[in-house]
């Protein structure tokens, strides 16, 4: 293919990728209820967000769920990532990869049946448990890849110098893989705060999160308030991605 054709078609695809998001951001500042004509600049929709109690509550829920789920899944995912690296295991690799490979809707639906079967009331708690379940695999993969880039002889050296396996892990391995763990935690946080499908099935009637709130707003009546919250959420995600890629380059590609 000729160079010119490639550049033109490549640029067109980049435009296709970014234009929709730019439109969402642009209309969040538009002084009109309709996402159609440009009328003028306003902060109105952002101010509206601050007065929207159900939106603030949903944001609070999302934050709490994401913090809890990312913490728990980072602990479990780090253990899993380390186990994958150090030992020859049969069950764990399957358990890590399978939830990532099957359609998300099935994970959501099966968790719904499960929680009802064990008589657990659907709500923030069940959302958290579900988020931990799907975040563990992502953290494990990030930590595992960080470990495989590590020089194994450093651990051996610590052992030769008389460190117990635990000391060698805590004083040598852990500091070396810390950036991978932090990147994994940020990844889990982003995945949790953005998740819609699994949350949708495990939330029950009362609990709401930001994506659920956005969903019901889109379904009922579209106003630029949705654009405003979307813009803020994109900024948050972008910020987390930049931090994650600074801490551990390469980890952002994992998704």
């Amino acid at each position, binding site marked *: 293919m000729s160079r010119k054709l490639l550049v033109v078609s490549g640029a067109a695809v980049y435009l296709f990728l970014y234009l929709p998001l730019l439109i969402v951001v642009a209309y969040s500042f538009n002084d009109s209820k309709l996402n159609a004509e440009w009328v003028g600049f306003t902060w109105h929709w952002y101010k509206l967000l601050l007065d929207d109690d159900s939106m603030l509550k949903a944001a609070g829920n999302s934050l709490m769920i994401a913090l809890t789920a990312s913490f728990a899944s980072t602990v*479990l995912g780090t253990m899993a990532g380390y186990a994958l690296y150090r030992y020859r295991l049969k069950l*764990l690799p399957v*358990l890590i990869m399978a939830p990532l490979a099957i*359609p998300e809707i099935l994970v959501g639906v099966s968790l719904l049946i*499960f929680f*009802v079967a064990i008589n657990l009331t659907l709500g923030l708690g069940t959302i958290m448990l579900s988020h931990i*379940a799907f975040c563990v695999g992502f953290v494990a993969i990030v930590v595992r890849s960080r470990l495989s880039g590590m020089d194994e002889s450093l651990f051996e050296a610590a052992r030769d110098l008389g460190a117990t396996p635990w000391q060698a892990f805590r004083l040598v391995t852990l500091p070396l893989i810390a950036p991978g763990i932090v990147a994994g935690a940020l990844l889990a946080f982003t995945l949790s705060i953005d998740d819609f499908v699994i949350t949708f099935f495990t939330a029950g009637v009362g609990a709401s999160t930001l994506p659920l709130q956005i969903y019901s707003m889109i379904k009922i009546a*579209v106003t630029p308030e949705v654009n405003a919250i*979307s813009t803020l959420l994109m900024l948050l995600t972008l910020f987390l991605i930049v931090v994650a890629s600074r801490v551990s380059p390469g980890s952002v590609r994992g998704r």
Partner: protein
Amino acid sequence: MGKNLGKWLISGPPVLYLVVFFVIPTLIMVLASFRYPGEYGGLAPIMRHDASGAHINLTLESYQEYFSDFIYSWLFLKTLAYAVITTFFCLVMAYPLALLIAKSARKYRDLLVLLVILPFWSNFLIRIYAWMIILGPQSVFSQLLNGFLGLFGIDPVRLLFTPFAVVVCLIYVQLPFMVLPLYANLEKHDPALLDAAQDLGANGWQRFWRVTFPLSLPGIYAGIALVFIPVLGIFAVPDILGGTRGIMIGNLIKQEFLEARDWPFGSALSIVLTVSAMIIVGLAALAARRRVGRDV
């Protein structure tokens, strides 16, 4: 012994968590597909007691329902068709982009790849919402298109809440999954092969179709798998953009669980979906292995 203890201590908790919150729920769902629906939604008890004692209360009814009414297979075929169209357009759009990145100067490549990944880190619903704005009846795009069609005396068309809206958005959300494996493949090609083809008199198109394209087949197969499978289970895109005509199998599953409350049938649908997806992947992997084996 010490090594084994460490192994259990470190791998035990994540294994336990995933068994409880992934394996057991999946098994419960499989079992649920053989149960009767409960009177008020949910599931009927597994054991049934009557005058003659206790019976196991399981049935194939949900599967019979699926196969007895063609409307379900039709919806499934429609979902497959959406996935095929989506995959095709993703391939057509992703290929030039992946090739462009692979042929760019090495220092720009990471940035160009990052630019492909970045939009799909934004919330899934936001990306769907963006298309709701673009395809809405009052949008600039709709106005321009209908104005243009009007010049030829064609009636205005509706874009939102149609299968067209669903497929466009599916292409949008899945595109990066095609670009990345293609790029990973194309980047490794040895430029000397193209030089050799040129020396032997091949023109640009010949060099592409006879050298680059066949060598990129493994990347194409990987991309197809990554794009195709997730599309089968998506429900948010048709739910928001599809209206009544654009629904997919995922919408039916959602409906059975949250509105119709026929959980056994919803579970059976999920299982039919998963098993079909696995069979398709298996067949594709087999075909891919044969082709790659022959071409390379």
